[in-house]
């Protein structure tokens, strides 16, 4: 199970990094989503992998016998934040596409070179 989770995290991270490096907005948004999935999965595992264990100590049971609830709370927060951020990126990317005419992420030539005000 550990190997499976590790491979899943690694594969998603690799896919995410590859897509982000495409430098086009749509692949990058997908890549960011992949990355945040990978990180969320990673966060869940930081409390150790424990299956079929209660998340909260009940009646002072054996200490080895529970799932750490905190990483799950962290993951929940992280999921919410990454949802919000994805929405922001999508809107911004759309705005940049409509205003600028293409979906490249790197800055256009006119940002680096004096063009006499003739942008794009």
């Amino acid at each position, binding site marked *: 199970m550990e190997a499976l989770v590790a491979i899943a995290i690694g594969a998603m991270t690799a896919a995410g990094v590859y897509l982000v490096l495409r430098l086009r907005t749509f692949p990058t948004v997908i890549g960011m989503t992949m990355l945040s999935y990978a990180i969320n999965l990673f966060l869940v595992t930081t409390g150790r992998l424990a299956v079929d264990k209660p998340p909260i100590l009940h009646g002072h049971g054996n200490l080895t016998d529970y799932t750490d609830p905190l990483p799950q709370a962290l993951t929940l927060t992280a999921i919410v934040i990454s949802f919000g*951020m994805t929405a*922001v990126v999508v809107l911004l990317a759309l*705005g940049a596409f409509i205003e600028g005419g293409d979906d490249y992420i790197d800055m256009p030539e006119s940002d680096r070179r004096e063009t006499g005000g003739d942008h794009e």
Partner: protein
Amino acid sequence: MSHFIIAPVVLPALIGGLIILWMRHDMLLQRVFSTAGSVLLLGVSLYLAYYASGGDIFVYRLGNWPAPFGIVLMLDRLAALMMVLTAFLGLVVQLYGIGSGWDRKGWHFHALWQFQMMGVMGAFLTGDAFNLFVFFEVLLIASYGLMIHGGGGLRLRAGVQYVIINLLGSTLFLAALGTLYAVTGTLNMADMAVKVAEMPAEDTALLRTGAVLLMLVFAIKAALVPLHFWLPSTYANAPGPVAALFAIMSKVGVYAIIRFYTLVFPGDSVVEHIIADMLLPAALITLVVGQIGVLGGRHLGRVAAMSAVASIGTLVIAVTMFTPASIAAALYYTIHSTLSAAALFLIADMVAARRGGELWLSLRPKIRDSGLIASLFFMTAIAIAGMPPLSGFIGKLLILDVTRPDPWWIGIWSTILVTSLFAIVGFGRAGSTLFWLPFQLQRIERQAEAEGRPRPQGPIPPKLEPDEHIQDIEDAVSPAMTFVSTGALLAGLVLLTVFARPAMQMTDAIAEQLFDPAPYVSSVLIEQEGAR
């Protein structure tokens, strides 16, 4: 007293919410409420700083949950100093935003401004690593809105780049926090410090990984080379007042480095040597890259952005020494570089407003108020380059002084001194192109006219695309206010120079408190009801 600690977070949140809910369509009300909020915030920060200056550490337990399970806010001298600096900068730059008319070029400027303040204040106050992440997100999401305020193709493009870099940074932040949690089993910074100190040295491999990941995150926020690529386009294309406010944002990264690597991973631990060994070369290269950018920049916004990168380099050089004296020097330089970088961005915006929104360093006809702006620019350039008599000189001297015990001091000294020369030449070139040569142009034209020759055809200002939202002097509500707020930042620099000794005593006291984390830890963990 105890409930006042949360006021810097709650106050902007309330005012921002009020502005969005009830004042969306009334710019005057927004301006009044937002300014009043910033004034109050400055007042609260000063009040808290007064309390913290005694050396006590105040803890605010949200919902009265016991630490380390609940979330705590911590008020110590460092947090108080950073809050006062932020509140002052926020107020002054906001006045500039109102005076220059930037705030009505898009929606929700004031609300976003308040949320930004809330995020920055929260990041300084929090004593919990995960909450640091949350407050980073709060300040970032507000900064995304502010960054693209006013719109325009180029700005939106820079905004996308900025958002994506920061999202990657946030992802990395979560990975670092996850790693640290997996090792220490806690996210409370004081508790983490205890756990790290108890950890046997041979078990720290994962901990070191987490610490280095965390440093990468803070280095992205602080724009340390090689993680600085997002900064120039972002800052050069952001609206002037927003770029000026961002001067404090890169300092949040430096603050987090100082906080984490004095509290959680202090002096003798294995972790810190790695961090210092990696940070010092990065900081030196940052300084060189930044100052070469100042020297070679062809756009005033980029020159200002690169000088912000260079100032981070200088700052982190002092931080990496990790001695009380070096942290004190770094904090002094933080105040100086925040105020001076903000002033430079405001001046760049004033020039842009008078040149039809463009800042390329090329010959253009003389701008309005040229003399006044030129003198402000001259003062700011002197301060940033570190020439006497302004505080940049004192700051650099202090940093040179604290790096003396380092075996690499010759390298550090020569880097700082040589790159200062770059900055002087770069600013000299920018200033003469923007302010001096137009006078020459005017003189040649007058001479030609007097001799009856046809006027030489001077450069024609660029034609702007109709849909490009630009900053224009005609939009300014009150140009006088823009000068007053820029002047207030420079007055801050002058005060910092004149009262350098009290300022140093203050930063010394902060550093002393930082290097004695025991009271911090005990006030979080032990001095609470039902202590463990």
